């Protein structure tokens, strides 16, 4: 490409998240992702600040940039005030912009996130909602969650929620005017283009056009049951 560093540096957050990294490795020492994955935020900062285009491109095409959990523990600890977690967010943005994300298994999982979190925001105004947290997809929620979802109309009002009701309160129905305004903001600020790009690049890379199959593969790693 030859201009990847330039693309990264154009992000409005870039100047706040990467000054001169001295490679001390404190970010890696504190990083929960580095404990779980073969992941080293110190090295990522170094690759970017050295402006090595080949290595940056390899990063953008790899699973590596998708390991961060965005806890931002690195922000607190960096003695130079760098934020590897935000740098990761910028790398992910450019990877999605260029379609490179679809070349890695972890990157393709973005498809599942567009069909859950992003879809929820546009459909119902919230990132998550009990109607969209099915016990089948969330076995870790245990039998108490199954019970709640099954009896939510009886239980939620007891807890003060206004489940699917008008007016204010938890779990209420969100007015169409509010949803329309959120959608307009998504359209004008590039979110809809991003969601379209994720879908297009993932389908092209995998050769799978069926939404159900692609969701199952990118969410659980298995074919749909």
């Amino acid at each position, binding site marked *: 490409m030859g201009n990847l560093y330039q693309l990264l540096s154009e992000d*409005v957050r870039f100047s*706040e998240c990467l000054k001169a990294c001295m490679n001390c490795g404190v970010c890696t020492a504190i990083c*929960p*992702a580095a*404990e*779980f*994955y073969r992941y080293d935020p110190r090295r990522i900062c170094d690759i970017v600040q050295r402006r090595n285009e080949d290595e940056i491109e390899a990063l953008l095409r790899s699973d590596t940039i998708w390991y961060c*959990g*965005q*806890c*931002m*523990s690195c*922000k607190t600890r960096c003695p130079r005030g760098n934020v590897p977690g935000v740098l990761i967010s910028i790398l*992910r*943005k450019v990877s*999605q912009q260029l379609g490179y994300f679809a070349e890695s298994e972890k990157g393709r*999982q*973005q498809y*599942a*996130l567009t069909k859950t*979190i*992003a879809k929820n*925001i546009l459909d119902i*105004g*919230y*990132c998550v*909602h009990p109607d969209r947290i099915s016990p089948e*997809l969330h076995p*870790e*929620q*245990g*039998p*108490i*969650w*199954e*019970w*709640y979802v099954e009896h939510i109309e009886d*239980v*939620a009002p*007891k*807890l*003060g929620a206004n489940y699917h009701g008008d007016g*204010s309160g*938890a*779990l209420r129905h969100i*007015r169409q*005017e509010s*949803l329309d*305004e*959120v959608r*307009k*903001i998504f359209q*004008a*600020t*590039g*979110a809809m283009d*991003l969601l379209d790009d994720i879908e297009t690049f993932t389908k092209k890379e995998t050769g799978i056009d069926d939404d159900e199959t692609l969701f199952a593969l*990118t969410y*659980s*790693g298995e074919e749909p049951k």
Partner: protein
Amino acid sequence: MSKRYWNQYQKEIADDRYFYERSCIRQSFFPGSEAAFLKILREELGKDIHDDVNQHTCTGIGYHSDVVPFETTMTVVARLFSLMTQAGYENYVPSCVTSFGVFTEIVETWKEQPALLEKTRKLLKETTGREFNIPKNIVHPSDIIYKFRFELRDRMKYRLVNRYTGKPLKVVEHIGCHYAKIFPKHGVGNAEFPYVLAGMIEAWGGEVIDYPERRHCCGFGFRQYLVQQNRGYSLANTQKKFESMQPYEPDFILTNCPGCSMFMDKWQYVIAEMENKTYDKDGYGIPVLTYEELAGLLLGYDPWTLGLQLHQVQSERLMDKIGIPYNKNEKFKGVSGKLLPYPEKPEHLKV
């Protein structure tokens, strides 16, 4: 090291007239906590807190999962600020640690880059016709409970004391990463000496356990939990905290963020079912309470209206220790008073 280090890190917390912003996760998993918070502010403290009908998500989970661009999140946040402005409020209260982090990040970014603020104003005006003021004060709901912890203590019926031994209950607290790790100056006690929950625990009679992994992430990790294939990350990080706190034998865990609360509850269930292991001595797990649930319980609110029955690790043994009465026959009744079928019992975790 002085136990009063936290005192060097305080923040401004408005006295009254708050604009409440609803959390995706809190309303989904802990609607009773949200209702308790609003009730405590209005009925116990006599405060004005506005719950706007036109509010919605801040998109924080989408932003940190990289399916919502920063520019979009900034403009959605601007719409929420416009609702606050329209309603005549200046003090913004996002009911989620991730939201709190998003709002502080955006306002700090606007301070550093005024041109971005102007761009956001223009985008909001063009898309919705709306205008907004930046809040004078942004605080997490726990900051308000912390600020008025002594006033609430004076109204409480119970204390965090083991009624059998007379000793303070031992409490593990978890403030959640985005409360203070992104902008330590905006967290009571900073990221290193967290005191927002510890202050409540001490004021209400308990003892705070300072354990090695106190500041470690709960393991949410956004895409690391939201995508099923990645959930080992989430589970492993929460397990690391449990292993670290276990030797101190905590009576319960107190949380700031609704996500952390849910994970620390549900992953105990998963570990119990997978490995037949719990982190208490008796096989019931360590109860995990939100700060609203704790305040409500000590004020004498009904535990089944607070929503304690929705936790997978149940809280009756903790209530017994404190001496809080409860009617077990009411636990699984619906709003109509009809007894609902009991939930299935886990195989290993005792309930």
